[in-house]
């Protein structure tokens, strides 16, 4: 009798064990298998925004090296990055190809506010993870209405607000001039900035000048802004124009307190061409490590990064802010994939992306931790303000939490 009981219990236990392992079995959605994970991306490799193509190049190199080292959980990453020329209809076409023809598991780091706006609804209707968008527009953090979209960059709006609040606190009688790129990204920053200044925005901002990406120079705008008599300057420009502005401000003999948006804070691709001496005193924000910062010379992830681009993407400069940014995004992606383990369904990927807890992305500044929750998809809540000392960005004040 006892023997039979024993075998019965053993049978039951082993059956239970079998059932448990069955539930821990591998689960795949299109784009994932035992051997590979397909990741899609659109990037402007041509056209007016082609300087950002470096991001995709670095990410492709990162995944290539990762595959040589065994991949993620034994699976190779098949990274398909297509050119959309920064044109929204082309983005739609390429993303449809990625989702419907290539059948990728998810998209990572699709770049550009208009490009992503064009595919926002589509990705959420098709229930494909639309991850780590390479844009800081505030509308990507909306898990209630768009549960499949998660941004990466700290919000442009929040950064602008931070500068506005900073000016209110340190220079309440400042006369502010603003140079802004005439598009979605520029407007996002400007609106946040005005929010930060609150009721005093209208009286403090004495001059605003805008420019188009197709304009050859912004000299005239700088002349106008200087002529307004402002003593503070908020520079909302993309790299090429930021470099022009920094140089022109110096040339016309204007010495305002100069706030520069994070988008153009790269020493290598903006400050060096403009002239490092002209950039002294610039105030900005950083969250990704800079290649030119000697603080990180012996940092393991920076050393890995420099070795990677030397081997796989030699035309990329380690000082290029786009390069370290791309690296950081790729690292975060790998973390999410690792967390997902063998359950590579799209639903689980989003679940893992929405439950990142205090993760220090190696390429991100120490102390700036990535955190997400099901009702808040904003990855980086703390921002560190920095000031340029002629050689590198130096921490300026304490890290600030922004929402």
């Amino acid at each position: 009798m006892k023997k039979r009981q024993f075998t019965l219990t053993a049978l039951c236990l082993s059956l239970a064990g079998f059932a448990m392992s069955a539930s821990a079995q591998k689960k795949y959605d299109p784009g994932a298998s035992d051997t590979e994970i397909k990741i899609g991306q659109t990037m402007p490799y041509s056209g007016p925004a082609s300087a950002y193509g470096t991001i995709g190049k670095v990410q492709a190199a990162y995944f290539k090296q990762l595959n040589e080292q065994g991949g993620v959980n034994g699976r190779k990453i098949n990274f398909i990055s297509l050119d959309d020329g920064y044109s929204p209809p082309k983005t739609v076409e390429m993303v449809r190809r990625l989702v419907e023809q290539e059948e990728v598991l998810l998209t990572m780091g699709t770049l550009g506010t208009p490009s992503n706006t064009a595919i926002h609804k589509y990705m959420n209707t098709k229930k494909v993870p639309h991850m780590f968008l390479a844009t800081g527009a505030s509308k990507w953090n909306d898990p209630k209405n768009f549960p499949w979209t998660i941004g990466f960059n700290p919000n442009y709006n929040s950064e602008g607000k931070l500068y506005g609040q900073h000016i209110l606190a340190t220079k309440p009688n400042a006369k502010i001039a603003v140079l802004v790129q005439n598009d979605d990204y520029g407007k996002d920053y400007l609106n946040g900035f005005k929010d930060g200044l609150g009721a005093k925005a209208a009286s403090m901002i004495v001059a605003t000048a805008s420019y188009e990406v197709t304009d050859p120079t912004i000299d005239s705008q700088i002349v106008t802004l200087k002529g307004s008599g402002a003593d503070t300057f908020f520079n909302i420009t993309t790299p090429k124009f930021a470099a022009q502005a920094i140089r022109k401000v110096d040339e016309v003999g204007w010495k305002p307190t100069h706030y520069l948006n994070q988008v153009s804070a790269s020493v290598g691709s903006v400050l060096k061409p403009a002239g490092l001496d002209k950039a002294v005193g610039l105030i900005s924000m950083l969250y990704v490590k800079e290649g030119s910062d000697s603080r990180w010379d012996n940092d393991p992830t920076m050393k890995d990064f420099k070795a990677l681009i030397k081997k796989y993407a030699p035309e990329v400069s380690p000082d290029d802010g786009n390069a370290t940014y791309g690296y950081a995004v790729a690292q975060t992606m790998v973390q999410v994939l690792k967390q997902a383990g063998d359950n590579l369904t799209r639903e689980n990927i989003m679940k893992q992306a929405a439950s990142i807890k205090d993760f220090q992305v190696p390429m991100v500044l120490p102390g700036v931790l990535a955190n997400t929750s099901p009702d808040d998809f904003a990855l980086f809540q703390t921002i560190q303000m920095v000031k340029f000392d002629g050689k590198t960005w130096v921490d300026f004040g304490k890290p600030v939490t922004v929402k």
Partner: protein
Amino acid sequence: METFIHQVVAGIATGGVYASLALALVMIYQSTHHINFAQGEIAMFATYMAWTLLNAGVSYWLAFTCTILLAFALGVLIQRIIIRPVENAPVLNIVVVFIGLLVILNSIAGWVFTYTIKSFPSPFPKEPPFGLHFISSHELGSIGVTLVLLLMLYGFFKFTPLGLAMRAAAQNPDSSRLVGIRVGWMLALGWGLAAAIGSVAGMMIAPVVFLEPNMMSGILLYAFAAALVGGIDSPGGAVLGGFIVGILENILGAYVIGTELKLSVALVLIIVVLTIKPAGLFGKVIVSRV
């Protein structure tokens, strides 16, 4: 008032940029009667050649001269190899070939040199002239260079037999052949000279706008407008047109319509000028009798 003067002077400075590329457009037009949309990209490519030389340690003026010669050779090669097969084709076909050329040069520049901006040195001193902040020494120097080019071009076309032969070849290829002019080589020469002028323009422009493959695309439209406003067959007109466009754009942007619509309004005004004076301010009006 000071800001106004500053805007005008800044307009003259940017106008100088447009004027130098407009000269290249006039050059190619006078020798081939085509407007070459790829002119900007040829200039950009030549500037990258200069950048490569400078990076290799060559001194500025040596690199400058070598680039002009290389650009000249490039222009001649392009004409002989790529343009010659479609010389007698309908205008639209030639335009498509120009566009193909534009796209090829842009793409290759992006591939070889990447799209990140690069700084390009200026041969002029860093301090502003006479300590004033209205204009930088480089901008003033570039205007000077453009004016020198203008004088050389004007003299070449007006006073030298070669210049006359080139103009004849463009205006009336058949009659020119009868008189013994080697029309094919005149066209090649025209392209070479236009590329050379373009390379100088590029080397003057790059320190201001930073070197990158898309550097010339914004400028090409302004240069085109400037050349037409001044008169497409008049080098002096093109240069003056450049300054006019530069000043107009700045004044409109700063005082009239704001920076958001200044390009549109500037272009509208230019077109209005062209409807009144169809051949441009200094162009020759061709009257056709019926």
